């Protein structure tokens, strides 16, 4: 895409300007319709009967009383939807309703459609289910120890879902080169998205055999495919309309059982069927942050350079696969993208447990290892006596590198980001200099702007945009992207407006509708601005070409001399000579007939050629540096964060206001994970969620939220539209480790487990007072039998990106 993305263009009128969002006004007036705001005549309501036990065989279900209950229109069971599905093709292990087996508290076993929610709820109580309990797998340790019963019949061994081992270069040789080697074991607890909007869906099956599903999904396109498969309908008969999401954060990416269930119930009853999950049910739907236990062994020199890293992770996946295989990769593949790592070995295991399934939450699998790495770098800096900010800057990987694991990094202004937060925070005056109880910490990160590979293999575009122009001067942009609050609709309008020289609010944007809009893969992996943006540029440039030809002929001015700006098309050398945009479209329609263009985008190929190398590469990487200031009360262990400084390399802010907003949201979510959010279960074998409610699942309110000082660094990435990269996920990554490092600066204890709750701080402080190690965190990293490593020579060793066969005995020193 380099060259065609307009990055070099000057005199931008829309890009870089703080326009409000195209949907801002309908959001502040309550006009915008979310899924649960939709009501249709004759609409039925659905409730799901959910398992009350964590692991059992279903012996018997008797629905006769429920069926006879007045107002009940249909009862659905697992056998009515026998086809399995799941977010990734490698782990399609879900049934819309349980068949024979429940795997977690909250697994749906039956569904009722009734005239209203009350009747449906009452009828649920009339369904009788007999369970035969099975042993519960509660933890990573259980999953390693208990091979029978298996939660799923597929996977690797017993309850191990996935194992993978990669070695890039030769870590033992790297360790042999090191002045020091240290291993740190850390744990990052799971957390959930907690989007304020509860998942809701409304299905309608009309008598012409067409299904329409309005639903709060981030990934409409993938859902469309799953519906076709499970419902046995042709894709062309299914229309999915992604309603604006009331927050997503990854929690609305998977295809969900309730979406399939209401579709099926609409097909059975011939009436519209709606469901809105209760907040408690949203906790069961989950798909949030995986709890990850990590061991990071790193060799380094006195100057803080890393010679090798051996990073191991174990993910507690919960009851289903979901996006888990991808999450598993992500717990290791971006460790090489900030601090130069010449030799890298990565081993990961994902296990099944009888808990709500984990999946993609903001940062998808990368906040956990980033945390581990950044708190270790803090220790490394201390061990070699270097300033951790200086050390990070010194060894930051340069732009245009290829990492040991074959990830090509384009622009990356990490040094500049570090400089910004160091200067802004007064780092030099504060680090190790503040009074006891106050501290500062620094951390960095890098993140992808979209993935190089779609979820199912295909060679088609990742994003498509269509543009319709007509004689009214109206421009309509159609794109399958989904607005989840990040501003993706606005980005389309800004970009098309810039290229055509019109105002963004002149443009109508239609998104998230499989009937009307061309395919875009969805709002995940921070892909939307870059991919839809590039597709929009292409469509708009094609439209501009059409207009140019028509206007050039009319004005008798060479096309190359025409400018598009301020709702006019004019001769650049004689701006008086020109016409309004509306007239230009009119002319073009006269000359060419009905006007429409398309644009599409597919990421460039990645240099890695080994199995698994498609996960991690991205058209562009952002990087972020953050300094957190904390206050730790040594009497109570309570940590408060007055302020966070954060600098993010955005490439180019398409709209700085929205970028700053995304970054503040990232800091907020990072703060929540660092200090309080945890998705945990009662400590017996019943695996009941500890607190499936807003009240008890702690998240930051206005009283806990810190001040944020944001810096935007613009490195102009040649692969990004107008140079833009992502902002929605990357900036979260450095926040938790910066806070942990600041806690150490404040009171001299290391909390190696997220969240950093007061009890952990107190335990570490007490241990320290007794002369023991001032630390709280895991000490044991369990092992299981691992497969042979896939060995790949690094670019530094002259590798070709392919896996090599090598004799293990020869490579070990």
């Amino acid at each position, binding site marked *: 895409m380099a060259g065609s993305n307009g990055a070099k263009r000057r005199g931008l009128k829309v890009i870089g300007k703080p326009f*409000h969002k195209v949907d801002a006004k309908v959001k502040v007036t309550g006009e*915008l319709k979310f899924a649960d705001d939709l009501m249709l005549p004759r609409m039925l309501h659905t409730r799901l009967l959910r398992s009350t036990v964590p692991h059992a065989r279903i012996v018997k279900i008797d629905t006769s009383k429920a069926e006879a209950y*007045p107002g009940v229109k249909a009862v659905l069971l697992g056998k009515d939807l026998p086809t399995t599905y799941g977010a990734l093709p490698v782990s399609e292990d879900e049934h819309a309703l349980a068949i024979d087996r429940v795997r977690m508290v909250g697994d749906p076993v039956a569904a009722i459609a009734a005239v209203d929610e009350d009747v449906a709820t009452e009828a649920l109580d009339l369904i009788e289910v007999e369970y035969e309990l099975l042993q519960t797998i509660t933890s990573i340790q259980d999953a390693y120890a208990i091979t029978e019963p298996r939660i799923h019949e597929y996977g690797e061994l017993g309850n191990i879902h996935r194992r993978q081992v990669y070695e890039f270069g030769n870590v033992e040789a790297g360790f042999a080169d090191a002045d020091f080697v240290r291993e740190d074991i850390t744990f990052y607890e799971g957390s959930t998205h907690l989007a*304020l909007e509860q998942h809701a869906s409304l299905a309608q099956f009309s008598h012409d055999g067409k299904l329409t599903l309005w639903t709060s999904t981030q990934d409409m396109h993938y859902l469309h495919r799953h519906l076709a498969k499970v419902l046995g309908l042709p894709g062309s008969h299914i229309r999915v309309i992604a309603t604006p999401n009331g*927050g997503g954060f990854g929690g609305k990416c998977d295809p969900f059982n309730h979406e399939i269930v209401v579709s099926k119930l609409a097909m059975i009853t011939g009436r519209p069927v709606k469901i809105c999950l209760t907040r408690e049910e949203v906790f069961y739907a989950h798909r949030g942050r995986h709890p990850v236990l990590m061991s990071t062994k790193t060799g380094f020199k006195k100057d803080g350079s890393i010679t090798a890293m051996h990073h191991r992770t174990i993910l507690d996946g919960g009851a289903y696969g979901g996006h888990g295989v991808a999450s598993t990769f992500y717990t290791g593949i971006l460790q090489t993208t900030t601090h130069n790592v010449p030799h890298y070995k990565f081993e990961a295991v994902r296990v099944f447990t009888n808990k709500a399934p984990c999946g993609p939450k903001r940062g998808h699998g990368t906040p956990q290892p980033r945390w581990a790495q950044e708190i270790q770098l803090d220790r490394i800096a201390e061990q070699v006596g270097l300033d951790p900010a200086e050390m990070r800057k010194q060894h930051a990987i340069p732009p245009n590198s290829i990492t040991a694991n074959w990830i090509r990094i384009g622009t990356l202004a990490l040094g500049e980001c570090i400089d910004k937060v160091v200067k802004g925070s007064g780092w030099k005056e504060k680090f190790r200099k503040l009074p006891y109880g106050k501290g500062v910490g620094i951390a960095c990160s890098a993140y992808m702007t979209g993935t190089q590979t779609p979820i199912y293999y295909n060679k088609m575009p990742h994003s498509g945009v269509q543009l319709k122009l007509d004689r009214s001067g109206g421009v309509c942009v159609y794109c399958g992207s989904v607005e989840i609050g990040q501003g993706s609709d606005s980005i389309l309008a800004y970009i098309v407006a810039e290229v055509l020289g019109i105002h963004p609010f002149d443009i109508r944007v239609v998104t998230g509708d499989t009937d009307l809009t061309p395919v875009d893969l969805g709002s995940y992996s921070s892909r939307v601005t870059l991919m839809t943006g590039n597709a929009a540029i292409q469509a708009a440039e094609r439209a501009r070409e059409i207009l140019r030809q028509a206007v050039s002929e009319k004005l008798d001015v060479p096309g190359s001399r025409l400018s598009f700006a301020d709702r006019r098309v004019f001769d650049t050398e004689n701006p008086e000579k020109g016409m309004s945009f509306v007239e230009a479209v009119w002319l073009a329609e006269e000359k060419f007939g009905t006007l429409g263009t398309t644009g599409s985008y597919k990421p460039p190929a990645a240099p890695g050629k080994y199995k698994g190398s498609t996960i991690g590469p991205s058209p562009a990487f952002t990087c972020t540096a953050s300094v957190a200031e904390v206050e730790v009360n040594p009497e109570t262990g309570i940590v408060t964060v007055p302020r966070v400084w954060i600098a993010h390399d955005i490439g180019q802010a398409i709209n700085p206001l929205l970028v700053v907003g995304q970054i503040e949201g990232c800091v907020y979510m990072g703060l929540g994970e660092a200090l309080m959010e945890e998705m945990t279960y009662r400590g017996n074998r019943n695996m009941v969620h500890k607190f499936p409610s807003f009240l008890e699942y702690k*998240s930051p309110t206005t009283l806990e*939220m810190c001040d*944020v000082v944001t810096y935007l660094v613009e490195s102009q990435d040649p692969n990004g539209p107008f140079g833009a990269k992502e902002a929605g996920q990357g900036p979260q990554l450095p926040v938790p480790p910066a806070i942990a490092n600041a806690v150490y600066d404040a009171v001299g204890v290391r909390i190696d487990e997220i969240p950093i709750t007061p009890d952990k701080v107190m335990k570490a402080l007490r241990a320290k007072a007794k002369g023991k190690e001032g630390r709280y965190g895991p000490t044991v990293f369990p092992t299981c039998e691992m497969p042979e490593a896939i060995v790949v020579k690094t670019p530094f060793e002259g590798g070709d990106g392919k896996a090599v066969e090598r004799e293990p005995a020869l490579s070990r020193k």
Partner: protein
Amino acid sequence: MKQTRKKGNGRLQKAHIRLQVNGEQVEVAFAPHKTLLEVLREDLGLTGTKHGCELGECGCCAVLVDGKPVLSCLALGLAVEGHEVTTVEGMAQGTELHPLQQTFAELGAAQCGYCTPGILLTAKVLIEKVPRPSRDEIKEALAGNLCRCTGYIKIYEAVELAAARMAGEPGEPAKESIYGWE
């Protein structure tokens, strides 16, 4: 209010009440156990009021009853008989947005927009009581309204800007809140 009586299958007959909603006199009939939230959304079609928990924990459903913020998921519909309810739909005057709505739109204080109606109404009451609230007063007033998108910062800035404008002071947002710091 009409007396409620049990119907055949143990259901209660609908209650029928009058109240003021956004300045208009309305009548509405609904099952008597329904919450104000449900009555507003389902029986009056005012879906601008949102819900995140229906347990009084998130603040999404805040509306004003006689000018005071109330969590509509915790109030019975019956309880507002004869009272004055204001929802987000009642904030704009015709096509003119309330200053808070204007600044929330301008500053990106509504990202997904789901928490926004509840926050707008809560902030409206704050500004009516404290015309130029301090940052701490804003935090205190909004402590019961969760927002998962914004980190609250753009919300504070929008409340401050609206308060300034309503007090007739020059209301320009700080450069840093739009472009970040230099």
